[in-house]
């Protein structure tokens, strides 16, 4: 019985030390894996947008098949349920390593509306990307607008 008490205290002390350690070193967050996963999602968007945007900007040759794959990927990304990646307390005011503003958690309906707009823009691009270059180009503005709308309200400035 006594041993158990000591063990609990020891464990508590260890936890406290590691928390202090993490805070003092600034790098580790209790939501490290979720934050990494969020950034991974963002990078997946960026890579696929890069394929479409590279063609839109005529920096790479238009390829209907590759454009369609990238657009399909965007649609797939917007259909992932990401709720588990955004736990309470994983905002820029509470933890290190993220620019996600606390307002995300106080404005969930608006965040939902904005991610809905991204879903719509990705779906529109899915219908445009494989058609021809001009169609693909016409869909980029809406995608950029949807990304920017969320980053305007909910991403901390650098």
């Amino acid at each position, binding site marked *: 019985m006594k041993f158990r008490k000591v063990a609990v205290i020891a464990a508590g002390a260890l936890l406290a030390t590691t928390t202090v350690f993490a805070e003092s070193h600034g790098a580790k967050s209790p939501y490290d894996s979720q934050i990494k996963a969020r950034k991974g999602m963002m990078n997946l968007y*960026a890579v696929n947008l890069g394929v479409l945007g590279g063609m839109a900007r005529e920096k790479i040759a238009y390829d209907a098949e590759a454009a369609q794959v990238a657009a399909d990927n965007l649609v797939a990304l917007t259909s992932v349920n990401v709720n588990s990646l955004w736990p309470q307390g994983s905002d820029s005011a509470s933890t290190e390593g993220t620019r996600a503003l606390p307002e995300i958690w106080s404005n969930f309906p608006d965040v939902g509306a904005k991610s809905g707009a991204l879903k719509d823009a990705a779906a529109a691009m899915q219908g445009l990307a494989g058609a021809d270059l001009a169609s693909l180009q016409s869909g980029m503005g809406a995608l950029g607008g949807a*990304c920017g709308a969320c980053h305007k309200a909910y991403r901390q*400035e650098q």
Partner: protein
Amino acid sequence: MLLALRGFVAVGIVGIGVFFWITSPVKVDPQTYAGLTANPENGKMVFWAAGCASCHTEPGSDATDAPSLSGGQAFASDFGTFYAPNISPDPDHGIGGWTVEEFANAVQKGVSPTGQHYYPAFPYSAYNKMQAQDLVDLKAFFDTLPADQTESKAHDVGFPFNIRRNLGGWKFLFVSDEWVLDTAPTPELERGRYLVEALAHCGECHTPRNALGGLETSSWLEGAPVPGGKGRVPAISPGKLNWTAEDIAYYLETGFTPDFDSVGGHMAAVVENMSRLTESDRKSVAAYLKAIPDE
């Protein structure tokens, strides 16, 4: 002793005279706008280029074609927090019923219809270079926007900055009608300079300020601390931003960086504006940014 006192009083009187002379509001010459016919279609382009909606819409509102300029956004600074006022066409709570002259005094001289100085959070030090025709057209477009009855919020500014008269001194020191880039040899650069330095007032955030809040034009567009917050507004001068002119124009159109990250924060509002301009205007802005001489 008496002589010294007299001298002191004389200097004091001259000093007060100079103070009143320097700090008294300077107004526009109404003749500048006389006989100009307003074109609200062009005014719409001026409106988006000048970014009025970015500051004067309700906090957190999304972009629309006919925004309600009800005000309320807060702007922190080293001198206090400023709240953008209601500038919708409501006659009681906004600026409905203002004459072109009153509107011009506000936008280009920073002077209210009652003769008070406005704080330079309102970028009249850039808008003073707006062409008279654009000013008249802008007013006409303002008149088409929805009226809103939201009460303007008082600024939260402490002594001595709450004495508006002093702003005349600020204007005397820091407002200039000269271009920063003194030569613009092509029509594209001239247009770009007009957009960047006059309408879009890019320097207001991207150029550092001195202790009194005046722009350090010797470090033009070289980036600056976020006013009243943490972080930095990035440099956009050619020596410090390695994007091509095409990168810049595409960013202003779509919000995508060359790496396909997206614009965020207050700059997202700027892109919402810039995306409504013509391709040729965005290219002019990009050409201008590439033409700033490196120090």
